[in-house]
């Protein structure tokens, strides 16, 4: 039990140790821009992390680059352009809508539409199937049975 507690505490500490160090900008508005930019850029070494999350050296270099450019008074768009010129659209977590990224943006809508069509198709088929079995006489019988059932209950 005691050992488990030690191991557990160990994990708590390690989370602190691996916290990523980021830059501090002079005014809060710039700081906000800085944070929003670094949380939208992909770390290219550890591809499923943003450069804000990653401890990789390249991520640290790119954070420094963003910091330097903001200090030089560059805008968010200029920084995005700087990054895509060097690393391609892949560096953006929010890629622009282009012929090449079209499927990425429209794919989910396409699958939604396919799903809806399939649902409608299945429902229709089910309906047709049930209607086909029940003819007029039988329907009448069912109606009477249900009515008597209701009377029994009340």
């Amino acid at each position, binding site marked *: 039990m005691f050992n488990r507690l030690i191991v557990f505490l160990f994990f708590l500490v390690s989370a602190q140790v691996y916290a990523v160090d980021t830059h501090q900008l002079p005014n809060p508005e710039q700081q906000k821009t800085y944070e929003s930019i670094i949380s939208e850029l992909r770390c*290219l*070494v550890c*591809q499923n992390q943003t450069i804000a999350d990653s401890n990789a*050296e*390249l991520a640290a*270099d*790119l954070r420094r*680059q963003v910091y330097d450019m903001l200090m030089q008074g560059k805008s968010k768009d200029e920084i995005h352009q700087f990054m*895509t*010129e*060097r*690393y*391609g659209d*892949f560096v953006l977590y929010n890629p622009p809508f282009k012929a090449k990224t079209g499927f990425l943006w429209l794919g989910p809508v396409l699958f939604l539409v396919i799903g809806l069509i399939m649902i409608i198709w299945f429902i229709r088929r089910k309906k047709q199937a049930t209607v086909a079995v029940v003819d007029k006489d039988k329907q009448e019988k069912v109606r009477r049975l249900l009515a008597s059932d209701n009377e029994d209950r009340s």
Partner: protein
Amino acid sequence: MFKYIIPLVLFIVLAVFLALGLKLKPNEIPSPLLNKPAPVFSAPKLNDSNVKLSPTDLKGKVWMLNVWASWCVSCREEHPVLNQFAQQKVVTLIGLNYKDDPVAAKNWLSTLGNPYNDSVMDADGRIGIDWGVYGVPETFVIDKQGIVRYKHTGPVTEDDVNTKFLRLIDKLQAES
């Protein structure tokens, strides 16, 4: 009959996507630098940091930029291939020593051999950022006009030299 076709089609579609997924190389990000002018730098040489080298000095030549570091494990794997390739003297090979300690870098070249016509230092990795370097080793081929024509990520193998680099360099040398 129809009942069986739907799962079969779904299975085939899924299988095709998975098979394609196996062939993808997510580590190889296409470089937006291809067919664009090589990014400019003026970097200190490894053997004499007072002397600088810039891509403009190499205009009119077909050259290769190999990004490497002494701390990089795959570079060690690549190094003998580069040594052998350099002996053929078909192209000017420039080494970009990326985020490295100059002493360690010089040691590396003196013990493992120096395939480079010249080596420059990128101590803080800024040149690397300009070239879109995200992992060493990376190798670029630049034509006589100073246009980046090819990028190779990861260690260059003997096979890469024979199937990709030599052919491309031959072609580029023939261009004006």
